[in-house]
């Protein structure tokens, strides 16, 4: 749709590169009248990778997702899904999608909705597998009930089943827990982990940052339609910190602590921003402290949370990666 001749050539060249990523997009731009929804967004999701799409309300997350799935036509930019240009509907053959606005034919039963989606995909999914899929989202005993009688949360669960039913290689979830109770949120987290274990690529857009942090390999942060930051959690959250609760800290012991990295002290609690990622650093430090007569009560890993980092990025508007 937007790809010119050179764009198509590029798309074909990229498609031939093995292994093609689950999602590859470049230079996406979308305006609604005068309002810019998406501006120059590029990122990719590797096969089997779980990527979180984060950002405040109106950042353009849903718009990006809709562009990827061909529901919205971008003003510029290119998209490849599982190696195929997104203009080709076949690119979506192995893609599952839970929209932010999840609604399914109210006059159909839950199982009929799944059957419809299986048929539209052209896959052959036996009855048993559809049942399993409904069971996975906790709707096993409602398979024959009309969707019109479902609560919001149940419809969202059905939406998850729809996204998963046709054996996808890429699953796109737009705020999958917005209507779910805490139990449902935990279910979705387990579901994401099981997809990750099965090497299904996932692009998930969620407000529950702590959950994203727990399951995502990488995050992409959007702000006002632009890419504010992206990278692995390691890259974004920076260095590891370790917090120790100690007694009987002498001047020599404190010097040893400072040698391990940037030291901050609050009473008995010492926090060290570790200078290197060497796995021996912490055990060596503890052994040395014990030898110096320090009593060690607790040693725990600590680092800034994704939430703190996200707030930092959005407030300062600094898009730069951390060194």
């Amino acid at each position, binding site marked *: 749709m937007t790809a010119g001749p050179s764009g198509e050539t590029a798309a074909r060249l990229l498609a031939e590169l093995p292994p093609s990523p689950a999602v590859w997009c470049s230079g996406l731009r979308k305006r609604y009248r005068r309002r810019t929804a998406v501006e120059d967004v590029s990122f990719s999701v590797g096969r089997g990778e779980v990527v979180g799409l984060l950002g405040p309300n109106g950042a353009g997350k849903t718009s990006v997702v809709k562009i990827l799935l061909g529901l919205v036509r971008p003003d510029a930019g290119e998209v490849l899904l599982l190696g195929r240009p997104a203009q080709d509907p076949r690119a979506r053959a192995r893609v599952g999608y839970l929209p932010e606005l999840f609604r399914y034919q109210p006059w159909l039963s839950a199982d009929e909705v799944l059957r419809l989606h299986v*048929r539209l995909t052209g896959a052959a999914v036996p009855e048993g597998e559809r049942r399993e899929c409904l069971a996975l989202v906790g709707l096993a005993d409602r398979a024959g009930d009309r969707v019109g009688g479902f609560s919001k949360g149940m419809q969202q669960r059905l939406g998850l089943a729809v996204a998963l039913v046709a054996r996808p290689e890429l699953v796109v979830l737009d705020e999958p827990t917005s209507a779910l109770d805490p139990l449902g949120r935990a279910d979705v987290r387990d579901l994401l982990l099981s997809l990750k274990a099965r090497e299904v690529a996932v692009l998930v857009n969620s407000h529950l940052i702590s959950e994203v942090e727990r399951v995502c390999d990488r995050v992409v942060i959007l702000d006002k339609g632009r890419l504010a930051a992206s990278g692995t959690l390691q890259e974004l959250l920076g260095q590891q910190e370790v917090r120790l609760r100690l007694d009987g800290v002498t001047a020599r012991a404190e010097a040893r602590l400072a040698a391990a990295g940037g030291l901050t002290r609050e009473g008995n609690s010492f926090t060290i921003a570790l200078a290197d990622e060497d796995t021996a650093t912490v055990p060596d430090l503890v052994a040395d402290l014990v030898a110096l007569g320090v009593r060690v009560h607790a040693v725990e890993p600590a680092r800034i949370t994704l939430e703190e980092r996200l707030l930092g990025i959005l407030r300062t508007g600094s898009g730069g990666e951390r060194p």
Partner: protein
Amino acid sequence: MTARTVPTVAALTVQEAARRRVLRALAVLTVVLLALSAWGFSRIDAEFGGLTSGEARLAAATVLNLVMFGLSLIAALGTAFLAGPTVAGDVESGVALAVLARPVRRGAVLLGKWLGLVVFGCGFVAVAGLTQLLIVLATTGYWPPDPLTGLALLAAQAVVLLTLGLLLSTVISPMASGIVAVGLFGATWIAGVVGEIGAAFGNESVARVGTVSRMLLPTDGLWRGAMNAFQDPALLTRFSDAFRGHPFLSEVTPTPAYLGWAGVWVALVLGLAVIAFTRRDL
């Protein structure tokens, strides 16, 4: 891929039509109309003592066409109000998001919806129309000269209208599209009657109103053809004056060229609907 999408969506649309409340409303309206007509025809039969006199036949033909007009109106209302929600409603509610994110072409989805509506509309016309003809046969003993052509033209009229409804529903809201489609249908019918009256009084420019509106929206021309197929041909020779400018009697059958134009019109409007739907952001 398209070969898979079209029948799947068509079947879904028929299922939707059958499961929505619209169907119950349609069924109730139809039964009421058929019951009324059964009573009316038995009265005509009793009043005139059988359909032997020319006046009785003329009355019966007029009433039959009047009832058929009622049926075509129900078919028009029904399909127009089904065509609206099936596209615009799905987009508005979000049902379309999950469906169109599947490996399907939007054009194929729209074609499937159209096909489902055509099956539904034609099924309705066939069942309700045939029931009506049987009622007339039972009460008065009258059987129209060309019932198949008449019913086919009625069905074609429904197809024209639902295609228009589908186009409208790709660009405006579900309710509005139904109302606009039915409004245009009514306007064309009135323009057709006006044109007939113009022709009866030999007023060319007034007559042209009917001709032009019949080209712009081919429902009225098809409807006049259907009426012609239902009425007794002997009437036309005996009561030719009564046919002039009569809204429920017709002296013309549509020409092959006009039928061809109706087909082209449907294809054009459907093509426009596909283009509008394909370009749309959801």
